[in-house]
């Protein structure tokens, strides 16, 4: 009779290990999925930029500098390699685009050009989507890290080789933000 006690104990332990392992696996897969979503949005931005540049070029003859910066940043971002390289290139593209939006504000005629406004809206939406998918990814990474590091789970995590993943952040980009509150002005 007494032999049943350790047997049930072992069975329960096995169940517990299996449940936690499965949970860690599904969290890890969600993190990977969220990472690919960011790529999708970045690509969308790459495709929209040439259209916007060609539409506003006719109106903004004196802003060649800004336009060229945007085009150059885009080319760099498409050809960037590696996680860090990509993140840096995408950040500089965001900066160039912000500069372009600020300049577009001083051309009121552009407001009546439907194409330009439409493209600007699409680009603003894309920036938002990139930000939201980054946010979602970071939230998932935080969840996963908590799950790996808290006490009962960390034993299982380390024995099955679950590793922490990196947050998607490139450090100091927010400090260089221009003063204009873009998204509230460009309706």
């Amino acid at each position: 009779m007494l032999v049943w006690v350790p047997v049930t104990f072992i069975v329960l332990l096995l169940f517990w290990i299996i449940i936690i392992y499965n949970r860690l696996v599904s969290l890890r897969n969600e993190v990977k999925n969220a990472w690919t979503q960011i790529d999708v949005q970045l690509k969308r931005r790459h495709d929209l930029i040439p259209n916007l540049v060609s539409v506003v070029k006719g109106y903004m003859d004196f802003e060649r500098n800004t336009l060229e910066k945007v085009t150059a940043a885009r080319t760099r971002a498409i050809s960037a390699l590696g996680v860090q390289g990509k993140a840096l290139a995408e950040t500089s593209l965001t900066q160039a685009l912000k500069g372009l939006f600020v300049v577009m504000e001083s051309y009121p005629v552009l407001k009546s050009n439907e194409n330009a406004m439409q493209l600007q809206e699409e680009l603003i939406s894309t920036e938002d989507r990139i930000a939201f998918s980054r946010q979602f990814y970071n939230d998932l990474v935080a969840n996963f890290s908590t799950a790996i590091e808290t006490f009962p789970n960390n034993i299982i995590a380390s024995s099955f080789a679950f590793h922490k993943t990196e947050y998607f952040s490139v450090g100091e980009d927010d400090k260089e933000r221009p003063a204009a509150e873009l998204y509230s002005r460009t309706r």
Partner: protein
Amino acid sequence: MPLTFIDIEKQKTWRIAVFFLLLVFMYFCVTAALVQGILLIIFPFQFIKSGFPLVTGNLLYLFVVFVFSLIIAAIHFFVSSLNAVEAIMNNLGAVPPDREDGIHRRLINIVDEIHIVTGNKRMMRCMVIPSLSMNAMAVADLRGDSVIAITEGLLSRLTRSQTEAVLAHEAYHILSGDCMETTVAASLFGMYAAMIERLQALGEEDSPGIYPVFFLFWILLKASQLLSMFVSREREYRADAASVRMTRNPLALAEALHRIGRNADGSGFIGSGLEMLCISDPQETAQQEEGVWASLMSTHPPIKKREEILLRMAHASIADLEKRVVKAGVASLTPAQSQGQYYVLNPERHWQGPCTVADLVSFPWISPRSWISTGPGQEVERASENVLIHAALAERITRSGQEFSPFTCPLCKQALHEISYEKTKVYQCNYCRGIMVDDARLPRIIVRREIACTERITSLARAATKDNQNRILMRKMQGKAVCTVPLVPCPKCHNSMMRTFYSLAYLIEIDRCNYCDIIWFDADELAILQCVIENKMTAGSDTLAE
């Protein structure tokens, strides 16, 4: 006092769970009592003999009643909530967003963004309610279908980040299952109401045993309504917290709530029981009461309290909020006015002005060779030499290269061009500048204020309204309609259009075709109508006399 949104969510979670359990418990009590009542009717003698027991000690009997009531309740829930979304959307007249409209496209983009930030866990459609009131609601039914609906009035009055905050709030209601619970609760109350009516009908005839049961139902109904209101209030706080968590922008939600709360146009009338699904209680904004009883019986927490919590997160105060909202309202109209004033030499060789670029370009006789100057004693130049005016005039020329539509202008008999006015598609004649608008798109154009009301339009509006007022008086005195201008044919179907005033409050003449549901505005009439409604120039009002 919780300072961050995470703390608020944690605090409110367990309370909601407890309340909801109580609610479920009460539903089952009611159905058990209902079954008892039915048995009472069917087997009155046994019950009277044993002295009206409402709860007997017999376990098997209780279990049977429990299971039976569970089955009946389940059937009722499923039957009534299965197609709730379709029914509610049809009731409100909601339509999917219009892809040809700039602001609706922005709405579609925002809903996509919400899907991204929630990880695409659930597909939510969005619909637009063609009402000028300001409200948003979320509905979900047991089939898994879910919809976020927003009124035209709200969509056109909020900025992009404010719309995001409102939609995130509604999306949370759907994702957390609140909407399904609320729809189910609403259908349950329908069951009680129907039952009580039937009991009232029965009660006239007989059986003293009926009355205590009736009273019991009534008490349970009121108590469950009260409890459910507590639950829904807690849920609103929770949804506000979740919206901030998604958009990381508490200020935008506070501003949106502020605009909704102080809006004089109202939040519209939504059917009974559905108020719980909206972002703000339609009746609260109408009455603006605070105080214990009002706050007990309302389905939403008072807007002021919600704003305070949000503003505390943003380290701002309500005074700051007021200033920002007022500034934003003014700022959206000033782009035209801040451009600088010009004087222009008109064909009669008189200097006219000061006027803005928008006004200048709208003069029918303006040409690139007109002389303009920034002020007396300043340099005089040709209009084409000024960069801004040149660009505006060039815009007019390039616009005529736009797409022709199959519709013809009733006055000029030329094809109409598609243009975008207030971000929505309308058809304009390049010669007489008359505009054809679909009936469904007109409310949007009236609400939106992208295009400022120029001085010229305002004075034209006043003149037109006064003129029409006099005409109505003349008609009354002369006793019959005198129509001096012939009726024009419809651009689509070529039948004669009906000439009426837009409404008796706003006396602007328009031509309407009732077969095709379109409205024809002569040159400037659409701008005049917008100006009249914006400034509320009704017959006999003060703004008219200025």
